[in-house]
């Protein structure tokens, strides 16, 4: 990170602190931190942007009540920790930040932990992002890398070059979490294929799919982290590569596929940076279970939670497409779900050599 940028961030944090200090000392008034509300009830679907965005609900965090004081303190402590991190030119994971700020509050009788868990500190980090307007990767607070990438693409991080086009088909590269520092070079692929799980990715890579179809394979290993989502968006919007997403044929998997396409409630404030509205969710469709004759043993019975999720999804504005409604209705009728791995029942190469090419051919990518 450039020192100028760092300096800018430090100034922003200092300005927040200065404002609070001035409010208290000079104006003798309650300092207030204004944040947009993040969460389910303040997430709005934008038809125009085709993604989830944050609504206009606000929270004001001010030490004016006994309940809010701890929150206020948490935000400031986290902001200060971020400033320290920048000062020392270090990098930390969100868990690292949690540990760095861990402490006890109170005396012998009334003692409690400053954070009740890492969730608290994660929220504080989010608050600092919202307060400063800087995504956390930029002030070097990252999470554990989860995303994996494989294919004809080169990443430049600092002075290092990560070549993801490994001839050996043996392994994939982790997607660096500090995407702000990553530059993408040499994208020679024709399209980008995102799969839900790393196990499936490994299978596909091993089959020589990348070489055969000139594709970039990506996975978020389940719930994708920000870097993976960002990577997908950059490849799609800056490098103009079409993106297809494959996930398990269950409401959960569908949800993960949709993270790439429409965003998520918890990160709705960051959608513009993370969401790829042009991504196509190709599979695995509920109809595929029957179309590709997945044997009954490989099918799973839907849980109540799945049913609820599907019912919920059916009502969402982004699922109003006829085909999706049909798929969801099929699921609600049959109450059966299936993982991508189920194709292995037809043989280890079936997924990469039969199912995927057929699907891709349907949308004209190959």
């Amino acid at each position, binding site marked *: 990170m450039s020192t100028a940028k760092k300096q*800018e961030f430090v100034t922003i944090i200092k300005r927040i602190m200065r404002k609070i200090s001035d409010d208290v000392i000079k104006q003798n008034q309650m300092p207030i931190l204004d944040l947009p509300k993040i969460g389910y009830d303040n997430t709005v679907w934008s038809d125009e942007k085709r993604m989830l965005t*944050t609504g206009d609900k*606000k929270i004001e965090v001010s030490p004016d009540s*006994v309940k809010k004081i701890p929150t206020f303190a948490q935000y400031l402590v986290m902001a200060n920790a971020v400033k320290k991190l920048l000062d020392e030119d270090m990098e930390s994971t969100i868990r690292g930040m949690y540990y760095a700020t861990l402490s006890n509050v109170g005396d012998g009788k009334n003692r409690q932990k400053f954070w009740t868990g890492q969730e608290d500190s994660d929220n504080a980090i989010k608050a600092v992002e919202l307060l400063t307007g800087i995504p956390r990767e930029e002030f070097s607070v990252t999470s554990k890398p989860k995303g994996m990438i494989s294919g004809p693409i080169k990443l430049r991080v600092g002075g290092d070059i990560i070549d993801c086009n490994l001839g050996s088909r043996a392994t994939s590269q982790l997607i660096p979490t500090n995407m*702000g520092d990553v530059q993408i070079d040499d994208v020679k692929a024709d399209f980008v294929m995102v799969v839900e799980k790393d196990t499936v990715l490994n299978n596909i890579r091993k089959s020589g799919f990348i070489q055969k179809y000139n594709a970039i394979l990506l996975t978020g290993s389940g719930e994708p982290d920000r870097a993976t989502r960002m990577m997908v968006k950059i490849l799609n919007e800056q490098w103009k590569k079409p993106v297809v997403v494959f996930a398990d044929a269950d409401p959960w998997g569908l949800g993960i596929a949709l993270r790439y396409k429409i965003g998520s409630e918890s990160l709705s404030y960051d959608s513009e940076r993370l969401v790829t509205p042009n991504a196509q969710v190709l599979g695995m469709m509920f109809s595929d279970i029957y179309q590709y004759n997945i044997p009954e043993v490989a099918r799973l019975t839907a849980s109540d939670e799945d049913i609820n999720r599907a019912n919920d999804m059916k009502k969402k504005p982004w699922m109003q497409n006829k085909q999706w409604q049909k798929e969801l209705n099929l699921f609600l009728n049959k109450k059966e779900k299936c993982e991508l791995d189920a194709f292995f029942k037809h043989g280890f190469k079936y997924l990469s050599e039969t199912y995927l090419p057929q699907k891709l051919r349907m949308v004209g990518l190959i």
Partner: protein
Amino acid sequence: MPNKSASTVLDPAEEKVKVEVEELKRDISQSTTKLEKYKIIYNKKAESEFFVDNSALAGFTGERILYMAIRELIENSLDSCESFSILPSIKISLKIFDQSNDLWMLTCEDNGTGINSDKLPIAVCSFLTSAKYMEKQQRGLFGVGLKMVAAFSTKDTDFPIKVWNKSIDEQDEYYFELRTDIGTNKPIVLSKKLLLKQHSRIQDTSGFRIEVILRAKLVPITKNKIYEYVSETSIVNPYSSITFETDDGIFQFNRRTSIMPNPAQEILPHPSDMDLKTLKKAISKFQTQKMSLPKILSSSFQKLSYEKAKDIVTNTGLSLKTPTGDFSEHDLIKIVNICKKTKFQNPNTDHLSPIGREVLTIGMMSEYTIVSNKGNDITGVTATATAEKPVLHDTDLNPQGTDDTVTASTFESAQNEKPTPTPFKNNLSKSNFSVKVLKPVLTTYTSRTCVINNRPTVVETGLAYGGDIPSFKLYRFANKIPLLYDEGSDVAREVISEVEINKMGITKKQAKEQFSVNKESKKDRVIEVLPLHIFFHICSTKIPYKTAGKESIASEGELKYYMKSCLSELYRKLSTQIRKELKLKEAENKIRLYKHYLPFIVDSINESLGSKNSKLNESFSRLIENHLSKKPQIDVGDASSADSTLPVQASHKMDLADIDLEPDIQDTKDTTDTKDTDIQDTKDTRGTKETKETKETNDTRQTQKTKDTKVAAFSKPNLNKLERKKKDNKKVDLSLSGKLSKVDPTRNVTKNKKPKNANKKLIIKEKDITNKKNKSPTVKTSVNRTKMNKSFNKPQNQSKTKEVQSTIDSYSKRVNKGKKK
């Protein structure tokens, strides 16, 4: 030689006779020695000797002698006053008389009825002589207690028992010197004098004063029990004035009311309780008059009409014409048998004299207790403080002002009667004991009438909570007598451990966390962490005592069930208060915690700014404290007026409770606002509605309750009770409605009540604008800055959305920029 032969013939016979005679003689002499050896002498023992020998039967054992003696004297005095509705004024004194020989001088003086001077020596000295052998609730029943005191004095010392007596049926005061002839159960009158006016000891129109010397060791435990006994007596008898003089000083227990419980009336026995003895007694009573058996039955037993008695007699097959004297026991037992099977109306409760809601509440509202000040910090100052407290207390006791015209006047009279207890100052300053008045925050009362052992029994329970009450305590009373020993085996203990604390609306965990003084305290019963005094009073003519010592009550019949139902009701009544208090406690803890958060805030700011502004900490804490104390004060007024039934102890603490009601930070401003107003509306309406409803339902509930209690409530005192109960219920309701309607007016603002769809459209529009803005890359940082500056100015509504939106947009800009590099 016929003679000879005859003689020879006769001889053996003669000899035989002789031998026989001699043998007989030997036998007799033998048997007489046997008789002497196994001689059993059947003597009649005098009652006095029996009781002195078996003093444990009356509770007079070793250490407890002084305790029992005081107890008997006080109980006699109270009985004597109450039977004629005289407000008791009792002076007791227990002082060491001869230290080396463990002699104590015990004096007790009352303003009761006194005893007729002819009967007095027997009444004081002869065992099993009592004016109380009748079917009604009294403290003493057996005619043993006072005699025991006299016998012990006679037994252990050579001092006479001195009695000053002015009987209500006589004009003059007499002075007696008595001793008990333990061998014959008869009094020895050493002297009897008519006292002239100038020598008179008793100022009241009637009264009784006794002075005895007793030999006993006073161990600290007994001493505490004695003090406890006197304190507790004053709690259940707040209409009495008790002065207790000891070597530790004079303890004054003021009269707090002039309301006395209705005196118990003597009643006829209930037929279901009939046995051969009672039946024969009834018949012999009417022997001289020629009355038919049904007539005798109906006039000797309650709830038994002549018609019904006639039915019973004919059912047994006995002839109505037979003179009553001619019935054999065999005939009479048939009547008893029939009576046992017949259903009668429930017995009267006229012979009972429960304490009653008003009186017990007054007692609980001002618990006089003798406390020991273990530290040596007791000085003249604290002594005056404690001495003055009762006086202070009298004036501000019971500030409800609803139906207290009677009590108010009593206080005046009580004050006029009793000079302010300033002389204690000197006495108390030396001692480690003082009288303390505990004023709870809340008291509740409930009672049940039931039938236990065929005897109507009234279970009264009360509960005093919070305020000056430091810790848990169980008070047990039977016929207004405090029970101090054997608490562990008492039914009340079982009842307390079996009624769950969650009836109060709090969990065990909460109680433990918030109320235990130190967290490590290992009290197995959670209830004991609460500052709570529970009172159980059971009155009946036949209390199911567990032991002869009469110190604990057994769980007989449905007694436990009724006690539990009472306690549950009390807990429920307490729940509002205790939950409020719990909130206070939690808020207090939070307040305490928030202070620990301040350093985090201040340090963060100082560290980030790289400067140490010492002012910051100071002004920040001042700002927050001002803010927290200022805001809720609006509520304090409301709260104190709403809680008019409770002496508001901690009105300054009120504000903390409201802090807790702050909207959750997780909610946005507009949602909480609308939510709050919604709740407010419902609260308001509910408050007023409920008062009406509960008032109405109370009446019905009341009648139901009386039905439940099995005893028909048509007797006068019961009707009175009913009315009283109604009044009290109203009181509770009023306070309830006050609490419900208590809302923070500051939160009464509604804003941003926009329909959701409108919101959605608005956002889209705004985003369009921001998008356009962001197309020029130079805006980026400036947008950030303006956001920073503006976001701290509170009064912004819609512009905020724009800014936040723009910041979000600005991330993506920066990301894009980074990539393009």
